């Protein structure tokens, strides 16, 4: 077993394109949706990497590729030194034990015809070596207790639980195989505000208890700041800024990150007139036909000629301590007043 702080996930130049076909009998490819287009990052044991971005930026596709639910077009996803994107058969099955997922919608991600015990215990049917048959019921009850549900409710059905409790069931299922990495795709966005905090606190407690590493995908920047150690900001299939949470939130360098952060409403009316707001014009371009050079240049107020010609690489730039992909990167605090 690996020790704390050790690298357990390495993503390099990951690309996922979905082909766009035309014709019914004679299909030909006329283009591709570039959902994920060259993404690289690392994840250490016990660490949380937050991934933020708007709808269509490729963050959910990224999650699917990490889980090997989609094959990457190119690039690699190394988990403990092995590439899950190229693994097949028994090897893939073994690797999947190590990376599990918690889904967004607790209403549709649980089978309504299965009892909670069957839902949480289903991973053991596939990975029989983790829990021998006679041991499963006890294991499932342990898991229920770990996520704060009553172990006696093992024979209930999902509809007998509230949204927050269902999300706990989803988390228990994710924990069943004792993975090292859990990919959480918008785990709290379907929940009521007073329930969100319960689930966030649960995820943090489980992380400390089991030394889990999280990939935490969300569009809510406040939630991501709360839970993440590092944050990656995605725009149109690429990471435009990557760094420690304090770097990203207090010293954002990429114009898109600044616009995104300035748009987040702060639950405090004091100084609301003084807060700086960068209102972006228009919508993100289509990932089937992204702009040349920097993808953000069509909505950027700093755009110059070079932005259309040369693609800015994700690297540490002058005057900043973390990586950003902008020719004119400059730190600028937009979150705090005064």
């Amino acid at each position, binding site marked *: 077993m690996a020790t704390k702080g050790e690298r357990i996930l390495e993503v390099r130049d990951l690309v996922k394109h979905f082909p766009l076909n035309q014709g019914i009998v004679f299909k030909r490819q006329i283009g591709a949706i570039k959902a994920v287009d060259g993404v690289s990052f690392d994840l250490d044991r016990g660490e949380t990497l937050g991934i933020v971005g*708007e*709808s269509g930026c490729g963050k959910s596709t990224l999650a699917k590729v990490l889980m090997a639910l989609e094959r990457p077009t190119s690039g690699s996803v190394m988990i403990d030194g092995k590439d899950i994107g190229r693994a097949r058969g028994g090897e893939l099955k073994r690797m999947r034990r190590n990376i599990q997922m918690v889904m967004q919608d607790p209403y549709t991600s649980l089978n309504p015809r299965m009892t909670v015990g069957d839902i949480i215990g289903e991973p053991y049917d596939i990975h029989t070596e983790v829990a021998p048959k006679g041991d499963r019921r006890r294991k499932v009850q342990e898991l229920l207790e770990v996520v704060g549900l009553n172990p006696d409710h093992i024979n209930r059905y999902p509809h007998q639980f*509230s949204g*927050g409790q269902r999300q706990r069931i989803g988390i228990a299922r994710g924990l069943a195989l004792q993975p090292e990495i859990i990919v959480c795709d918008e785990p709290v966005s379907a929940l*009521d*505000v*007073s*329930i*969100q*905090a*319960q689930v*966030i*606190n649960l995820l943090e407690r489980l992380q400390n208890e089991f030394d889990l590493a999280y990939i935490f995908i969300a*569009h809510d*920047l*406040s*939630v991501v*700041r*709360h*839970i993440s150690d590092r944050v990656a900001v995605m725009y149109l299939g690429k990471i435009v800024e990557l760094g420690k*949470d*304090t770097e990203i*939130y207090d010293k954002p360098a990429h114009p898109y990150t600044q*616009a*995104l*952060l*300035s*748009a*987040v*409403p*702060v*639950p*405090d*009316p*004091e100084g*609301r007139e003084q807060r700086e*707001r960068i*209102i*972006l014009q*228009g*919508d993100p371009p289509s990932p089937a036909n992204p702009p040349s050079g920097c993808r953000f240049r069509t909505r950027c107020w700093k755009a110059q000629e070079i932005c259309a010609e040369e693609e800015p690489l994700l690297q540490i730039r002058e005057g900043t301590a973390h990586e950003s992909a902008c020719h004119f990167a400059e730190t600028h605090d937009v*979150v*705090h007043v005064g």
Partner: protein
Amino acid sequence: MRKATTDTLPAEGGLGNEPLLAVEDLHVEFHTRPGIVRAVNGVSYSLNPGETLAVLGESGSGKSVTAQAIMGILDMPPARVPKGEIRFRGTDLLKLSDEARTQVRGQRIAMIFQDALSALNPVFTVGWQISEMFRVHRGMNKRDSVKKAIELMDRVRIPAARQRVNDYPHQFSGGMRQRIMIAMSIALDPEVLIADEPTTALDVTVQAQIMELLAELQRESNMGMILITHDLGVVADVADKIAVMYGGRIVENAPVHDIYASPAHPYTKGLLESIPRVDLKGQDLYAIKGLPPNLLDMPTGCAFHPRCPYRQDNCVTDTPPLYEISGTRGSACHYWREVLDGDQG
């Protein structure tokens, strides 16, 4: 029992001392097979021209049902309004005849819904749907009404309105669809605009665009706006005053600055402490324990008592009225003084 109806339309012009819209002790219940669901239990609030009232609450708190009662779009049955008044410029809308109500709905009180894609008709062009307002309510002909539709699309800043007027809803992005909804709602210059979670389905940058647009339209026309939301951030950004709802009741109302600085109800206090903030790091998230109440089986006394850290014996038996804290503030908690003090300490 059917109430007498009247055809007298609400007056126009000056308001005197009367608020633009006043909801008084409104009750709404739904008769369903498992029993009577009391969704709204005595809600009162008022709105003045140019003012923004935020109604804050979680799912099932009755915030949307109250709005639907104001609009007169509740399905009756199963819904029933056993008690209460909705006074618009002094006239009780609940006593109006159906015809007179139709004159008010859409023209003088308009509404924006959360999900623009399902609120728009997929088989008609957006231009047709916007211009319908003018044909139906103003008796305009087709050409003039479409011209007005283009003007409105410009006003809500849809780029290339003239070219896009004949497009269908699915050809627009989520933010643009919400702009179309807003165009329809402001078409007839309403005096009250009810926005029910207008940005919940949208990305943050688009949310900022839409909220800015709404604020601007409000400044131009001096509409009163009721913003229904669960997002404490959005409320802090735009509201003048807030009504917090829980279990079909208003548990706290206050001007926006007071409520964030010193909440006077344990539920509001818990909510404010339970949300992570983008400008702070390392705060501990307080989680309100337990679950929102089941409307079929409401707790006795104060609906919040099973989840409340301030609970005393009388909370289980006595339903707290909305105690007046000051002229503009109220809290439905027997121990609002302790809640206020606890915040200072």
